[in-house]
């Protein structure tokens, strides 16, 4: 309908401020009289805090206060919570240990705060933090899953005997057992899904400002969901009632899940701003990000798949241990359960599935959702399984997949999800064509003649996005509804403001959402302003994660627009003395169909606000709101194929080609969608080849800087070849599915499948560093 509407790769409206240095991130904000917080953090993975002596620090210049956990407890600041209740197989509720914002007695991971210093400058606060003397009594620690579940292991929380949070299961155990008893072949696989550090480039930061006269707090924070932050701070952490707390998330420099949660530093900054009567700013450094931003993944799994004599899948059995770290983060319990086991059917007809998940505490940084959250773990497990099975059954891995693809929709899996639509064969075809799969054997032979080991690896992923129908997640234990809200304001001059509960921290909402309006009204996108990230402006919102912004937030905008258009048509019909049903909207005008009579949008808007001549009984104004609750998840899916070479002399991997064929439903801005895929692929490839958070046997993190944790750099990655196949999502009026996480979900398995194909050995874990690959080759 419009050149800037749906399907147009228009450049982003928000870019000008970012490319000219005018972005406004939390650390860029200065308030009058601002003080600075610096945290004293535990150097031990597990210890009793015997005493804290802040007397020397208090005497240092510029120091305003030193506070410990006891003072927060005394002021009844609530403990941090996990908001999704999971019930174990035996019917008992999950076992959540207490998590105070500053540890008053016991520290359980390196980096946990034991005190905070507030001073006149950042440097003075840092200097004084060095002078705070903490006497620790070290306790034995558990650095990983294996140590945590060993009989006699040190115990982290009295609430969780054996360090077990829950022992949960999904699926039909008896049916799965029966399926395996009929199997002609059973393929088994042991896998580790390595722990990752999200590492958004902007470190977390917070500024808290307490107004003593109004008894009102303002919090500027690096959040993907400011309304959720306000809700949790208000309802659970006793900071202030919601009407006395404004949360602003301005420009936010990447999230990837790590900025969903409400962290101790934000709670402490708010509490301290009231204590000291001045604004308090905290900006994390990268080391603090490694120590305290919640990590991702960290699963250890055993899987078995049963096949009949025709290589049709009969059943899947999975047992996974999930590392939660030292405390249960906000959504942590849902990640290895309802975001993981529910996706274990993948793209395949699997008549019986049984998945068991044991959640365990360890003396490490808390683990929660990181780009993909549960779905990358499911996809990695299944897609390595399919490749392993194909090799064992001596069939082409694409043929084995194709034989087992789901082809009729809707399809009810045995693990809750009901897939609405898809065409898995089409995306596999597209990827195979893009990489010229048919002539791979010739390329492999040629590489061999040059002394290189060439491999090809396939990964066919599916994910569940657009979280989520509130009733459904409520029945599964979620503490919140997962709808989204929008408000559309048509101003008297005809420009448009969209207030959305979604939050953009790189996704390009200011452009994509404006394109939705341009499509419907035919106005240019520069007449549309997107407002987000401020609880005083936007009525409510559940925020951005789980690739939900367009499918849920975008649909809320459409629902509000439908109300706007209905009212505007009435006004136009009244002004043009026509029937409402004859009014059509095009190019910013309301026209009487079949005539040359029309009225421009600004005139309709002006009429709405002057209210001099409105239809009888109509309220003035042109502003509508909508809350949209989705009816189902959306199911983006696709096929990724990686071709690479391994140098047997060094174990080093070099990409030859990486192709991605995704089905995201309708694309609003293909340029932005492709950018999302590129970034996801980089994180998936990073997991496969480079990234891994490592703790030593005492729970000391040994990868807590960019010197030690390998972030993907430009020369670690190839250029990607992307293509799209399309089945429209029937669950929302836009037909969209979500594209933010696909790359991170599908890429890892494709890379590892390619390396194991190249080296002819399947016993390879991520990250497949040259050292690791070399040792597998030469073992």
């Amino acid at each position, binding site marked *: 309908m419009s050149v800037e509407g749906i399907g147009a790769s228009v450049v982003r409206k928000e870019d000008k401020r970012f490319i000219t240095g005018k*972005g406004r991130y939390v650390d860029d904000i200065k308030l009058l009289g601002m003080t600075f917080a610096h945290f004293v953090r535990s150097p031990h993975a597990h210890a009793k805090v015997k005493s804290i002596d802040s007397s020397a620090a208090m005497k240092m210049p510029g120091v305003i206060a030193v506070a410990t956990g006891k003072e927060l407890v005394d002021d009844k600041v609530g403990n941090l919570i996990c908001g999704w209740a999971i019930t174990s197989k035996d019917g008992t509720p999950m076992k959540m240990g207490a998590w105070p914002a500053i540890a008053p007695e016991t520290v359980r991971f390196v980096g946990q705060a034991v005190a905070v210093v507030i001073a006149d400058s950042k440097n003075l606060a840092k200097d004084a933090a060095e002078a705070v003397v903490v006497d620790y009594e070290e306790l034995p620690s558990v650095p990983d899953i294996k140590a945590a579940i060993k009989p006699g292991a040190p115990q982290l929380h009295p609430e969780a005997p054996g360090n077990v949070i829950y022992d949960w299961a999904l699926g039909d155990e008896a049916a799965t057992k029966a399926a395996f008893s009929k199997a002609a072949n059973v393929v088994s696989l042991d896998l580790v899904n390595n722990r990752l550090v999200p590492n958004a480039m902007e470190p977390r930061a917070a500024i808290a400002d307490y107004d003593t006269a109004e008894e009102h707090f303002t919090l500027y924070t690096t959040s993907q969901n400011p309304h959720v932050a306000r809700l949790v701070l208000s309802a659970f952490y006793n900071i202030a009632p919601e009407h006395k707390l404004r949360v602003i998330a301005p420009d936010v420099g*990447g999230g990837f899940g790590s900025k969903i949660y409400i962290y101790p530093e934000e709670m402490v900054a708010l509490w301290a701003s009231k204590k000291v009567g001045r604004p308090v700013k905290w900006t994390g450094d990268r080391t603090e990000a490694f120590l305290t931003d919640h990590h991702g993944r960290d699963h250890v799994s055993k899987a078995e798949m049963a096949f009949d004599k025709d290589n049709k899948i009969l059943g899947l059995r999975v047992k996974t241990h999930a590392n939660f770290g030292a405390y249960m983060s906000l959504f942590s319990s849902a990640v290895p359960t309802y975001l993981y086991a529910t996706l274990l059917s993948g793209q395949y007809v699997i008549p019986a599935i049984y998945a068991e998940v044991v959640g365990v505490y360890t003396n490490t940084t808390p683990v929660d959702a990181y780009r993909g959250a549960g779905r990358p773990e499911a996809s990695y497990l299944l897609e390595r399984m399919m490749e392993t099975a194909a090799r064992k059954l001596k069939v082409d891995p694409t043929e084995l997949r194709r034989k087992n693809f789901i082809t009729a929709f809707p399809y009810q899996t045995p693990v809750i999800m009901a897939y609405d639509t898809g065409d898995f064969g089409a995306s596999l075809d597209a990827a195979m064509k893009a990489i010229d799969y048919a002539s791979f054997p010739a390329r492999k032979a040629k590489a061999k003649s040059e002394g290189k080991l060439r491999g090809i690896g396939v990964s066919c992923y599916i994910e569940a996005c657009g979280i989520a129908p509130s009733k459904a997640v409520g029945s599964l234990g979620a503490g919140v509804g997962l709808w989204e809200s929008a408000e559309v304001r048509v101003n008297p001059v005809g420009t448009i403001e969209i207030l959305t509960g979604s939050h953009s921290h790189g996704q390009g909402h200011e452009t994509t959402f404006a394109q939705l309006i341009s499509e419907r009204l035919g106005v240019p996108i520069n007449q549309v302003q997107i407002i987000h990230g401020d609880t005083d402006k936007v009525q409510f919102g559940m925020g951005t994660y789980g690739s939900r912004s367009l499918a849920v937030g975008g649909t809320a905008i459409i629902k509000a627009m439908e109300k706007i258009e209905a009212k505007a048509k009435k006004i136009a019909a009244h002004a043009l003395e026509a029937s409402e049903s004859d009014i059509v909207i095009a190019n910013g005008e309301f026209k009487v169909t079949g005539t040359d009579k029309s009225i421009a949008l600004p005139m309709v808007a002006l009429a709405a606000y002057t209210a001099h001549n409105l239809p009888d009984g109509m309220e003035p104004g042109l502003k509508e709101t909508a809350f949209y609750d989705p009816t189902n998840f959306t199911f983006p899916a696709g096929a990724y194929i990686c071709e690479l070479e391994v140098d047997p002399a060094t174990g080093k991997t070099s990409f030859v080609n990486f192709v991605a064929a995704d089905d995201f439903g309708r694309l609003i801005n293909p340029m932005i969608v492709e950018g999302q895929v590129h970034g996801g692929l980089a994180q998936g490839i990073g997991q496969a080849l480079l990234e891994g958070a490592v703790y030593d046997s005492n729970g000391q993190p040994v990868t807590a800087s960019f010197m030690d944790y390998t972030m993907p750099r430009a020369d670690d990655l190839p250029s*990607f070849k992307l293509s799209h196949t399309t089945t429209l999502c029937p669950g929302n009026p836009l037909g969209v599915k979500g594209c933010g996480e696909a790359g991170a979900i599908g890429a890892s398995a494709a890379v590892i499948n390619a390396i194991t194909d190249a080296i002819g050995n399947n016993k390879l874990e991520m990250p497949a560093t040259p050292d690791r690959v070399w040792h597998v080759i030469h073992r």
Partner: protein
Amino acid sequence: MSRIELTINGKAVSADVEGRTLLVHLLRENLDLTGTHIGCDTSQCGACTVHIDGRAVKSCTVLAGQAAGSNVTTIEGIAKGDELHPMQAAFRDNHGLQCGYCTPGMIMSSIDIVHRHGGKLDEATVRQELEGNICRCTGYHNIVKAVLDAAGRMKVSQAAE
């Protein structure tokens, strides 16, 4: 505290700084030039890259005092009024940014890359040269495209001058 004088974005600036003050802190905290970002504490990420006397330098590796007397250009100083620098325009046109946090450093590094390699840039060289700048959003695909695009634009604009 000691007084230093230098030129920033073409303007003479003087400031009283502690000896330990890094150039990036002088820019952000004393001069409110917040376009230069801090993404790490080990000089790895390149978010703080500026130009000192025409060369790209991570401003977290330089004490403010060391920059005394030099000519510093930040992301705020490369456009000519409303006319974007060709590198800025290329990042926008090629969708070479998402969250925008690494972007100023990326742009400042990339301008230096083009200056040093002239018209001889290829994809492999750009990728190798961008080693010192980390982006978590874009997978670098469109950043590489943007730099190659800008290399062409900068040749044209230099020829026009």
